């Protein structure tokens, strides 16, 4: 589990927010999964906002770049894509299920 900040892009390449404080933790537990006719290996993560609901609330398909930590396998900024409906706890925080592609 890590505490960090993320840049939100919607779609990827267009930043809509920066410096969003979040907590990220692994949700995989059983190795990488496959998607897109097995071409896209990924790991699952839970992401929680830690300082309320972002000015522009997170939503499915947003791409989040870790502003502090890099992906250990690519040495590039770790990148997460929200893959399910984001749960919003009114006035408190958001929780999002994300995928991070394995490797580059």
């Amino acid at each position, binding site marked *: 589990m890590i505490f960090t900040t993320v840049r939100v892009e919607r*779609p*990827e*390449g*267009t930043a809509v927010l920066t410096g969003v404080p979040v907590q990220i933790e692994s949700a995989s537990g059983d190795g990488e999964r496959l*998607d*897109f*006719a*097995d*071409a*896209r*290996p*990924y790991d699952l993560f839970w992401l929680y906002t830690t300082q309320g609901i972002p000015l522009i609330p997170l939503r*499915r*398909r947003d*791409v989040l770049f870790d502003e502090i930590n890099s992906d250990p396998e690519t040495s590039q900024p770790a*990148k997460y*894509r929200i*893959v*399910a409906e984001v749960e919003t706890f009114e006035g408190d925080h958001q929780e999002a299920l994300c*995928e991070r*592609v394995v*490797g*580059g």
Partner: protein
Amino acid sequence: MPTLPSQPDTFGALQAMQSLILNECLVAGVSPFAALSASDASRYGVARSVFIGRPKDFSDAYLPQCCIWLPFDTHADTVELAGYAGRARSTFDARVLLLVDQRTDWYAAEQQILTLRDALWPVLLRHAQLGGAVESVTASEAFVGRGLCYEQVAGVHYRCFEAIWRVRQQWQVSGGLVV
């Protein structure tokens, strides 16, 4: 008779397909596929989202997109020797997959995928040898693959069309057959 190459050139054939689609699959006179970022254009060597293979890191910024890929299917890839002199032939069936975004307006996506399909078919059917630039390619032909379909990527459904582009290659095993 022209000299045969000493090996097939599968990546060259896929690049020829990519080039034909980029240059000839047009809607209102321009390529309908999304422009790549400068770094991705440098990485892939093309300006628009017509990929060889399925991108591991699928991006919503690159829609509509086209993937030319070889599936895991033993029936889609054959190779045989054609005599003791060492002439070899092979055939592969590449899948040409078009993807468009249907999240905001499914009906607009439906029209878009049909437009792309109609722009693609003439390109696939017109070229008997993928434009003639790849020495090993002796024939190319196209078939309906899955046709209109859907793909789910990272929890999102996309409207798609998939065709098969079959390529035959021929080459001469250098030095002929040996024991």
